[in-house]
C-alpha cells in the first residue's frame, strides 16, 4: 500500500518512515539472504530542509560505524568525473553521463526559460549498464525532478531500492546538495524535498538500532 509521510523536519520524517516500516512492513528475504521488512511506494515529504543532516548526526552518535563524511557525500553527487573508487558515480551520471550534462545543459536552461516546466529531470539509472542481469551494484536513485512552485524550488527523488535506516539519510543530503546547486543558479530558494522509495526497507540487524532511534523499548 502506498504511504504518504509529511513532516516539518528531516529527523521527524525519518522517524515516521522507520515507525511505519517497523509496524506495517512485510517480511521478506533479499538476494543476499538478509531478513528485511519492506513497504512499497513510500512517499516522504520534508517541508523544511534546514536540518537536513540531522538523521546522519543521529546515526553517527551510535559510534558503532562511521557514516560517509558530508564532503564525500557532496563530491559524490556534484563531482563530474567517473571516480574508479566507486562502482558508479551519481555526480558523473548527472553531469556527464554518455556525454550529457543533464544539470547545466538541460535542467537549468529549461527552468530559466520556463519556470513552471515539468521537464526538469535528471536521470541516474542507466539501463544499458544497470539492468544487466549479472550486475551487482546498480544505481539506487532512478531520477530527480525539480519544480518551481510558489517561488520555491521543490525537489523529488525517486529511489528504486532504499535502505531507510542507513541509506535514506545520505540520499536526502545528496538531493539537498544538487537542489542547492540548481537553486543558486536559478536564484530561487529551496522548497520541499520529497523522496519516493519504491522498495523502502530495513534489515533485521538494524531493528535494535532503529528502536533506539525511536526511543522504543
Amino acid at each position, binding site marked *: 500500500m502506498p504511504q504518504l509521510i509529511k513532516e516539518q523536519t528531516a529527523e521527524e520524517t525519518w522517524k515516521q518512515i522507520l515507525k511505519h516500516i517497523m509496524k506495517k512492513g512485510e517480511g521478506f528475504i533479499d538476494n543476499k539472504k538478509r531478513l528485511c521488512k519492506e513497504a512499497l511506494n513510500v512517499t516522504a515529504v520534508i517541508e523544511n530542509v534546514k536540518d537536513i543532516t540531522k538523521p546522519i548526526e543521529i546515526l553517527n552518535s551510535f559510534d558503532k*560505524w562511521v557514516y560517509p563524511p558530508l564532503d564525500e557525500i557532496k563530491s559524490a553527487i556534484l563531482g563530474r568525473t567517473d571516480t574508479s*573508487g566507486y562502482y558508479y558515480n551519481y555526480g558523473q551520471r548527472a553531469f556527464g553521463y554518455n556525454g550529457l550534462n543533464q544539470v*547545466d545543459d538541460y535542467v537549468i536552461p529549461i527552468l530559466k526559460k520556463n519556470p513552471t516546466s515539468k521537464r526538469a529531470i535528471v536521470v541516474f539509472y542507466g539501463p544499458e549498464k544497470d539492468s544487466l542481469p549479472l550486475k551487482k551494484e546498480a544505481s539506487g536513485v532512478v531520477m530527480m525532478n525539480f519544480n518551481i512552485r510558489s517561488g520555491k524550488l521543490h525537489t523529488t527523488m525517486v529511489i528504486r531500492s532504499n535502505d531507510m535506516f542507513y541509506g535514506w539519510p*545520505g540520499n536526502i543530503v545528496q538531493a539537498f546538495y544538487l537542489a542547492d546547486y540548481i537553486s543558486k543558479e536559478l536564484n530561487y530558494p529551496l522548497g520541499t524535498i520529497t523522496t519516493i522509495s519504491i522498495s523502502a526497507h530495513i534489515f533485521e540487524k538494524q531493528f535494535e538500532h532503529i528502536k533506539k532511534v525511536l526511543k522504543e523499548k
Partner: protein
Amino acid sequence: MQKTKQQIISVLKENGSSLSTAEIVSSLSKEYDELKNKSDSLSKQRTGQLHRKILYHINLLVESGILRLEKHGEKGAKFFSLNLGEDEKIIEINSNYGKRITIQRPEMPVMPIEGYEKQGIVLKFEPNSWIDKLNSIVVMCNQAENAKSLHDIISKAFSAVNDCICLENFESIINKGDTSLLLKRLNSECEDYGKKISVIVNINNLKQESLENILGLIIRMKNIDFIYSLEQEELEEKFALMSKIVSAYAGNKRPLYIKNNKIQKAPYFIGRAGPYRIGEREWQNKKGASCIACSQSCIIIDVDKFYSSYGLDVRKFTDLLMKISRSFLSANSMQRRKAGVYFKNILQFDKPNENELLDLSRNYIRFWNFGLLQPNIDQALLMNMINEAKKEVDEFSMAEETIYNSCGMSTRFRIALSNASKKSETSLSSPKFKKIEIQGLEDIYKPKTRKEILGIGEVTDLFNGGNDVTFHRTGNLVVKDIIKEISVIMANYSLPFFSYDFKSLEEENATTD
C-alpha cells in the same frame, strides 16, 4: 596564437569561475569592448569576427583538455572554465597546448591511532605515501604481448605503488623468449625506486629450458623474488627442473618460495612489508583487468610492545584494531575520491577495465612479534585474542560497505590480517618468535615439529592477507631430500605458501643424489 591562449587562461585564472565567450572576448579585446554596444552593421561584423577568432582558440583549449564547457547560458551563450581537479594548477602551457600540473600530497587526516604511534606500537607502512599510493598490485603477464609491453606497464605502475608489484603468469613471458634483459632492467629499476617485484611462475605451464637459461640470473636478482607455483604431484613430474631450481637457490643461499597451487590458485606473493594474498573465491570472479590492486594502505602493529604496555588483553587489542580500521576508512575515503589522479598511469593503460582496479583490494593490518610459538605466551589465548578482534573488524568493514552502498556510493572496504616482515620498518622490536628448523625429513615427522606446523597453519587460516611460513634448513644440502621434504609439507599441511631458507646450511657441495 600561443599568446592568445595564454591570455584566455589568464583571464579565467584571474576570474576564478566560469565566463561566457563574450566576457572572455571583452576582457581580451578593447576593440570588441568598444564596438559591442554599437548597432551599425560594420561594428556588428567586426565584433562577430573577434568573437569567432577567440572562440576558435577556446575550442582548441577545450579539445586539449585545458578548458571545459561548463554550461549553456541564455540565448545559447557558452560558459567556459579551467578544467582542473582539486589539487591541480596550471603552471605552464607548452607548444602542444599541454598543461603541466602539480599534484599536492594529500594531508593526512586526524586518526585515532596517533597515541599508539607515539608509543611505537603502531607504524604506518611508508607513511609519506600512505594515501596516494597502493602497497601492491598484480599485473597479469598473459595479457601483455611481449617482454617490452610488459615492461611498459610495470614502468607506469611503479609510480602508483610503494611496496611490491606481482607479475602473475610470468611463464607466459618466459616461454616467449629470452627475458634476461627485462629482468635486469626491472631489478635495476627496483633498486632506483625502492620497490620489490614478485614473479609467480606456474611450473606446469613452463617450458623447462626457458627457465633453465635464466636460472643463474634469477638467483642474483636482489629485488626480484620468484615464486614457484605448483602442486605436490608436479614435484615428481618435474623432478629434473625442480632439482635444478633447489640446487641453485640452496647453493646461493637464496630463499625459495613455493605456492601450493592445489590450495591457492590466486596470487600469493611477498613484498618488503610482508606477504600478500588475494582471496581465492574473489579471484575466480575477476574480470578482464590487466592490473589489480591487492593492498591499499598498511599498518604494522608491534604486538610485543603492545603486550608490554597493555598485556594480553582481548578488549584492548580489539579496541586498537577498531581504531586502525577507522583510520583506514578515512584514508580510503580520501584515496577513493582522487583515485583518478593518484593512479592515473595505471588507469590509462587498463582501459576499458579501469574501474576494476580496486575490485579485489584490501587494507592490511600486519602483526610483528605477536607471540607465535613463543614459550611465555599462552598460544590458545593469543589465537583467541586475534580471532575476536578479527570478528569485530570484519563486522565493521561489512557495515561500512553496506552504509556506503545504501547511500549510492557503492564501494569496497575490506581489511586483511597478515604478518609483518622485519624489513618493513627498522624500529620494530627484536624478533622473539621461534624459528622452525629442519635438518631432514625425520624432523618434519617429529610430533613437536608437527604441532608447531599445525599451529602455524591455524594462524595461516586466520591471516586472510597471507602468512609467511619459513622453514630454516640446516644440515647438509641433499637436493633430493629437500624436494622430498617440500613434497611432504605440501601433502600433509594446508599451507598455501611457504619458503625455504638455506642460510644455515652447512658449507658443502650440493648433490642431487
